[in-house]
């Protein structure tokens, strides 16, 4: 649409004012340039195979050349608008657009050489290619239409007056779209959305919040896919399919590329993927190519182990691979505002001596119930009095108090409790399972109590519980063997006298 309409209109106009119009030669040459550009993708197809090296050499100047026409094209509407007040600027607009068109041609040629020479293909590549072709033709059209708009001698018809601004707007829209496609090619399609705040992401690009695989708990989904997604999918994904290989889903990864399968289940040493990522970084065939950072050693180790143990899409655990899961700590859920309760907090503190300390100046961080001062006199009844503040208490320091098993019932109503200190109390763990309702509890200190391993097992299901301390209890696990190098024996102790 964008292409045809303006050309048709230029063809209609010359009969009215032949002297001021572009000459026939100019029109024919521009028409042929447009047709040549349009037919180029059909004449020389992007077949996904690399071609001559010189093409790639020149093609790699495309990212350099491509930014100049973008800048110039953005300058044109600016000059036209400001030119309404300073006519001298408007005169330059045509020249700037002419240069922009020439630059478009150079960038387009280089881009084509890059794609053809390196064997890029894929939807994003062809979108970028078509976008830039349409863009170049639109610029040409603009260039041809502009004299109709600016010249005073041409009778201003309604159509002629509107055509140029409209086509300029079209140029800008096509420019933004094409540039975005190009950016996605270079940086990956999720480059803009990766660190976007979740709500915005859902609103703008609902498609990008996706689950990696059918089985989200599998080792593949949790560790292999993210590693490939972060390092390889930029060039081996939906947008850009280098060497015919796509790695954005399990099936496509296993299918391999034009060099055959990249993963041979059970044999990491035969798998092309491992071979390429473990080459010396300077090697021609090293992956990730184009100077991108190499995979992290642990990522390579995971992929190796995963291939060795069958490259299964569903296996959840691998032998010999233990990955700490606590890397991502979600910010705790904010608790309500207790500010209005401050008088009551002061009152209860004065009454019993146990304190309600503010975690920070932000009320949403909650309160710490601390009975350290009054440990010996703080028992179950005293704790029960703090129930009113339970929704705001995120930590309870009840170490060495007179708390007993009866308090588990009370504590289970401290819904926002994240850390619970019960060290040195007389609890035995009877009723410990009631704590299972505390969904945010991640720290539980039972050191020096009489809790047994059976009662501790009753809270095994608590997912959030990361730190549980059982030192000096009947439930204490056997001390881990000293994993470190043994300390020198007495006889050869260098500092023994």
């Amino acid at each position, binding site marked *: 649409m964008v292409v045809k309409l303006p050309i048709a209109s230029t063809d209609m106009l010359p009969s009215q004012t032949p002297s001021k119009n572009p000459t026939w030669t100019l029109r024919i040459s521009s028409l042929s340039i447009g047709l040549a550009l349009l037919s180029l993708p059909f004449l020389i197809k992007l077949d996904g195979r690399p071609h001559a090296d010189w093409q790639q050499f020149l093609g790699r100047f495309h990212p350099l050349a491509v930014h100049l026409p973008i800048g110039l094209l953005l300058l044109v509407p600016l000059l036209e608008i400001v030119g309404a007040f300073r006519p001298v600027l408007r005169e330059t607009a045509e020249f700037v657009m002419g240069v922009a068109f020439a630059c478009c041609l150079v960038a387009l040629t280089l881009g084509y050489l890059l794609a053809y020479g390196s064997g890029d293909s894929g939807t994003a590549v062809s979108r970028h290619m078509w976008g830039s072709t349409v863009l170049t033709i639109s610029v040409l059209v603009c260039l041809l239409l502009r004299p109709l708009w600016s010249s005073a001698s041409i009778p201003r018809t309604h159509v002629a007056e509107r055509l140029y601004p409209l086509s300029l707007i079209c140029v800008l829209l096509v420019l933004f779209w094409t540039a975005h496609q190009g950016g996605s090619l270079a940086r990956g399609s999720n480059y803009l959305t990766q660190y976007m705040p979740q709500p915005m992401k859902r609103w703008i690009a609902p498609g990008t919040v996706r689950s990696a695989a059918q089985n989200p708990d599998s080792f593949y989904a949790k560790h292999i896919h993210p590693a490939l997604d972060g390092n390889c999918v930029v060039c081996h994904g939906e947008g850009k399919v280098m060497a015919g290989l796509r790695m954005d889903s399990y099936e496509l990864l296993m299918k391999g590329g034009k060099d055959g399968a990249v993963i041979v289940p059970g044999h990491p040493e035969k798998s092309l993927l491992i071979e390429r990522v473990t080459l010396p970084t300077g090697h021609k065939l090293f992956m990730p190519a184009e100077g991108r950072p190499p995979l992290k050693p642990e990522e390579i180790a995971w992929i190796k182990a995963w291939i060795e143990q069958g490259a299964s899409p569903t296996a959840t655990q691998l032998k010999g691979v233990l990955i700490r899961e606590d890397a991502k700590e979600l910010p705790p859920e904010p608790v309500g505002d207790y500010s209005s309760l401050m008088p009551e907090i002061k009152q209860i503190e004065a009454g019993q001596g146990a304190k309600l300390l503010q975690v*920070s100046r932000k009320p949403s961080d909650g309160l710490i119930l601390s009975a350290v001062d009054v440990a010996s006199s703080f028992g179950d009844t005293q704790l029960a009095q703090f129930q009113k503040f339970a929704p705001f208490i995120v930590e309870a320091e009840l170490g060495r108090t007179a708390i007993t098993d009866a308090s588990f019932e009370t504590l289970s109503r401290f819904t926002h409790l994240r850390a619970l*200190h019960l060290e040195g109390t007389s609890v035995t763990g009877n009723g410990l399972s009631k704590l299972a309702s505390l969904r945010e509890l991640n720290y539980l200190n039972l050191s020096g109590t009489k809790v047994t391993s059976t009662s501790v097992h009753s809270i095994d299901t608590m997912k959030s519980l990361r*730190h549980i301390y059982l030192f000096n209890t009947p439930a204490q696990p056997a001390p881990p063997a000293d994993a470190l190098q043994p300390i020198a024996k007495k006889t050869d102790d260098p500092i023994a006298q």
Partner: protein
Amino acid sequence: MKQHPLCTDTECEDSLDVMNLPVPEKHKQEWATLATRRQFLGRSGKVLGWAALASLLGDYTLPRGAHAANTSDAPKLPAPQDLKLPNFAPKSKRVIYLFMSGGPSQIDLLDYKPNLAAQYNKDIPDSVRGSQQLTGMTAGQARFPIAPPHWTFKRYGKTGTWVSDLLPYTARMVDDLAIIKSTSTDAINHEPAIMLMNTGNMNSGKPCLGSWLSYGLGSMNDNLPRFMVLQTKVNDKENNQPVSSRLWSSGFLSSEHAGVGLRSSGDPVLYLSDPNGVDREVRRKMLDAVERINHQTLAELGDPETNARIAQYEMAYRMQTSVPELTDLSKEPQSTWDLYGPEAKEPGTFAYNCLLARRMAERGVRFTQVYKRGWDMHDNVTGILPMICRETDRGCYALVTDLKRRGLLDDTLVIWAGEFGRTVYSQGGLTPENYGRDHHPRCYTTWMTGGGVRTGITYGETDDYSYNVVKDPVPVRDFNATLLHCLGIDHNKLTYKFQGLDQKLTGTTPASVVSGLLA
């Protein structure tokens, strides 16, 4: 003619002297005591000046809080809530600071330089030393011969950290530490350097780290001081630099924020136990009476120090029961002694102090500082260093391990640091058996662990001579800013207005939190 005794006019000799007038003697005596006209006018002028100044200064002429004293019962110091601290949810609630006074030798302990062995007795290149100013102790030396460490280093832990054979226990816990090789200070002598580490300023008079925390974060246990200091018994074979009460002074903050030291022998706190015949009730009555008198003084003069004194009396009264409980180690299980070693049973040893520090952490003391003197080794390194390492190494390991197994390391910050490092070149004679090392401020090694700290890392790098920092320097102010960050404090927001400046621990030079050290 006799002049009036108070008259200063030298030209009035010929004039009439009132004292010669025929008046009764008693009148003359009365006249003699009176002020002269000159005195009257002179004094009146000064009074007018003072009055003018007072009106210009307005409220500033009155002692702080005097207005409050006039209007309400007693002036109140800003409570932590008023300071709005912590600024954000902290990772650590308390600090145990193991201060290695004297300057431990980073080269012999943790900053491994394998290239040094081959350069024994060679001169350190001038390019490395640069324009570094030396102390008076080595400035006169003709040569600066390299003294390689006398002990071998091995790699330990999953992190493969190099540790000297002198620290077999520290070697066991390297995976739990953040070892900072690039700490650097501006001072080259003990007193300014130790002040800088503790107060952020080389000159005394500023509050110490513990006082700032006491002031900013308040108390977790009203029965114990917020800031406690433990000194390790002196070993006479070591070169002990003085550790003075300036290092736990509250500076310009109210003196209730000053550190309270526990003695290493005898009663932990002097005169804490009631004398014979005085029971607790009598003591209480006495304190109540004294408090009333103090409140009168406060209302009269409005000196905030009176308030501090009232608070300290009350604290001392509560400490009469809390300190004996704190220092009573009879209920410690056998596993404690297995970990800390038999030395820990002897009050005043480093191991004992580490154990007390753990007990204080359990009881909610904000800031505990353990001092160990004797790291100042200008000569006889091979004689003294093994001795002092043996005294401290196990205690450090035991403390960290004990906190860890008891679940306290999650919210306690543990720091091991001296005031500076030591030179790679030998001070005095260098022999294959022995050498000395001078003060070295440009780089030294410290470690920290606990809540908020990224453990299992070595931060910063020094050059091949452990002389200059080549990567990620950590100046003292950044070190302290990082420490405050772990406690939920923005170092720019913990301030106290004094002498027209919003004073802060990190001083006026911009400091930054070392994000590489944070978990």
